[in-house]
């Protein structure tokens, strides 16, 4: 029968088509990924993580952190904020004008019109682009995650389930290494009602010797080891904390633009 062969051939083409689409094409399009320029800057993004943070990615992988945490900030769109940069010769008129108007979360046309009004009143104003969406409003990042963020990661740990919060920008949110380590050792000591299991096996508890160790964790009141003992992070815990501190989603790119805060955007 010919139809058996035809069915086989058609199946082969169809299955191969999906391979070409979602394996071959992404490899061709993204495989030679390069650094890109940061928006309004000559610096390149991303730079490789420090060695300790790269080791930390392996600790993150080995303990399956991605089972509960994503590393992808979502964004629903962009909006314009109008920012007054100078009051001009008639500050009272400008202040009166803007006190009655909404300045945040506008679309481009409204923002342009507003800037024209302020300029007409003698003031100076700029339009700032901001990302919008629930994740951004939660403070999980300044913009959505983009392919560039993961250029040097192996394995890429995007995650798919938010039992815990998104970690794409956790290094900006919690830049304190001690906080990260205490949170890993006893999550409930720094986050009320945290559902995260403690990772005590990444730490060792020991008697304080002649002097307390400089690496010992500093706990909030009411938590921590019994008196006379201290908690020391192992190398793996330190690497993991270094990795978490290296997670940022706060660099404006062509794909994911937003305006830097005023002070930073001035040359």
């Amino acid at each position, binding site marked *: 029968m010919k139809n058996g062969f035809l069915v086989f051939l058609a199946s082969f083409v169809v299955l191969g088509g999906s391979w070409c689409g979602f394996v071959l094409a992404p490899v061709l399009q*993204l495989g030679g990924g390069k650094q890109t320029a940061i928006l309004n800057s000559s610096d390149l993004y991303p730079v490789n993580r420090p060695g300790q943070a790269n080791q930390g990615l392996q600790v993150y992988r080995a303990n399956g952190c991605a089972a509960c945490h994503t590393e992808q900030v979502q964004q629903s769109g962009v909006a314009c904020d109008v920012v007054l940069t100078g009051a001009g010769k008639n500050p009272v008129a400008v202040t009166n004008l803007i006190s009655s108007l909404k300045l945040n979360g506008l679309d481009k046309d409204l923002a342009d019109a507003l800037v024209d009004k302020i300029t007409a009143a003698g003031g100076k104003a700029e339009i700032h682009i901001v990302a919008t969406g629930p994740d951004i409003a939660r403070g999980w990042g300044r913009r959505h995650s983009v392919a560039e963020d993961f250029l040097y990661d192996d394995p890429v740990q995007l995650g798919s389930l938010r039992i815990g919060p998104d970690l794409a920008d956790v290094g900006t949110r919690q830049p304190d290494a001690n906080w990260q380590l205490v949170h890993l050792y006893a999550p409930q000591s720094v986050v009320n009602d945290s559902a995260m*299991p403690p990772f005590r096996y990444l730490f060792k508890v020991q008697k304080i010797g002649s002097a307390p160790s400089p690496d010992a964790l500093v706990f909030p009141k009411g938590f921590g080891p019994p008196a006379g003992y201290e908690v020391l992070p192992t190398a793996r815990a330190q690497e993991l904390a270094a990795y978490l501190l290296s997670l940022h989603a706060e660099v404006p790119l062509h794909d994911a633009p937003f305006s830097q805060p005023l002070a930073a955007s001035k040359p």
Partner: protein
Amino acid sequence: MSTNEKSGSGGLSSPGGASVPASRLVSSLAPPGEISPADIDRSCCVPLLALLGGAALWLVVGSVLGLLASIKFHAPDFLANCAWLTYGRLQPVADDALLYGFCLPAGLGVALWLLARLSQTPLRGAVVPIIAANLWHLGVFVGLMAILIGDTTGFAWLEFPRGGSVPIFFAYLLLALWAVMIFAGRRERGLYPSQWFLVAALFWFPWIYSTANLFLVAWPVRGVTQAVISWWFANNLLVVWTGLVGVGAAFYFLPKFTGRPLQSYYLALFGFGTFILFATWCGIPPGAPVPVWMPTLSATATVLFFVPLLVISLIGLRTVWGSVRSRWDNGPFCFIGSGMDFFCLSGLMLVAMACPKISPVTQFTWFGPAETQLRLYGFFAMTMFGAIYYLLPRAVGIEFPFPKLVRVHYWVSLLGITLLVVPLAIGGVLQGLKLQDPNVAFADTTKAMLPFLRVSTLGLTALLLGNLLFFVNVLGLTLRWKLALLKQFIAFVKSPLEPGSACASLRPDKEVGA
């Protein structure tokens, strides 16, 4: 085109359904000189015992580990001092034990038997599939242990490092080669719909598994390309492979149980074509940090996946129409019927998750795991249970020791799936709505989810119980078979002067009812 002859998917369309022992029916029908179906069944005996016995064990192991992982939502401190048993390792191990431990070997075993039956060709050289089955289970053991000690690759559903993935890859190749050899030796050139589905599945797994392992583990590609390939792989394994094997098996068994031919051949061809055309492109989540054409294309394909879903459910419905009542008297029919129901339901959930209005709510929530559990357990495992309850006694020539437990297993599993999937799906939607509202603190979204997760622990407990019943029956059958072998061996040793009678007893021609 001899459509009418071909429209019956099963090798035989016995009007009496499964109440007539198929072997008896067919041996009387088989023309002289032809191999009887009973001989074909027996030729698969030892390979099937090796594949399915191990699968039943992994099923129990997986549900115990899944239950342990779930208890952590009641008490995060539970087993927290042991690195091996942290949630991030237990959960993937439980998932992989279900997928690689149970679903794949069960699917391979059922595919081997179905192809032998449909091709009217016995399995020859059984030693190779037996070795391959043991190699498979060894690979699964190494892979699961590797995840527990922290040696995972870090990609969902592809966690096994080389020590596990290489053995299972070659074991699969051997098993698939044997299955294809049976297929190539078929007596009838025309193909049954089940054969398209099964052969496509046999052929597709090595392709996706080698691609994923080469591009992600052996020579990893850079950046988010890894994520794209890993999503493509997971989707093609979880949706396409299980769909091909499960629907292929159902298209054989449903006509057999109802005594009605598959409705119809051309609809099945259309369903098969659209299934592999659309389902293979699903899986890239909307909003992923990749070039936007990929999630867009994937979402479009997922919405179009509704077409094969509709066609396949229509075929199933039209085939069982009017026979629904007989379903409740027939254990395997119960399992496969429910399996098809859950195939449609999980497919609808998949389509819903790709709709632009719904996906922002369901993404990153428990709705996704609910869909996966419904697909793997509700659809695939249930279909395989039905097939195994039907075929294993025929292949071994021995009845299950506790046939009444089959019905108990069915109802306990149904309860378990409901208690597992419904809370996770509803809780997932609530979680998503809270995640979409930035005024709700994140801690509250997790807290709101906890009651649902705790109910799902009950579901996992029921599933564990059901799996134990299955395991007890398969184990009992295996022990009976070994005992029978031992008795024959003793009889053979005791009566060396009468080899004729001993040899005859090596082939117990015991009839097996449904």
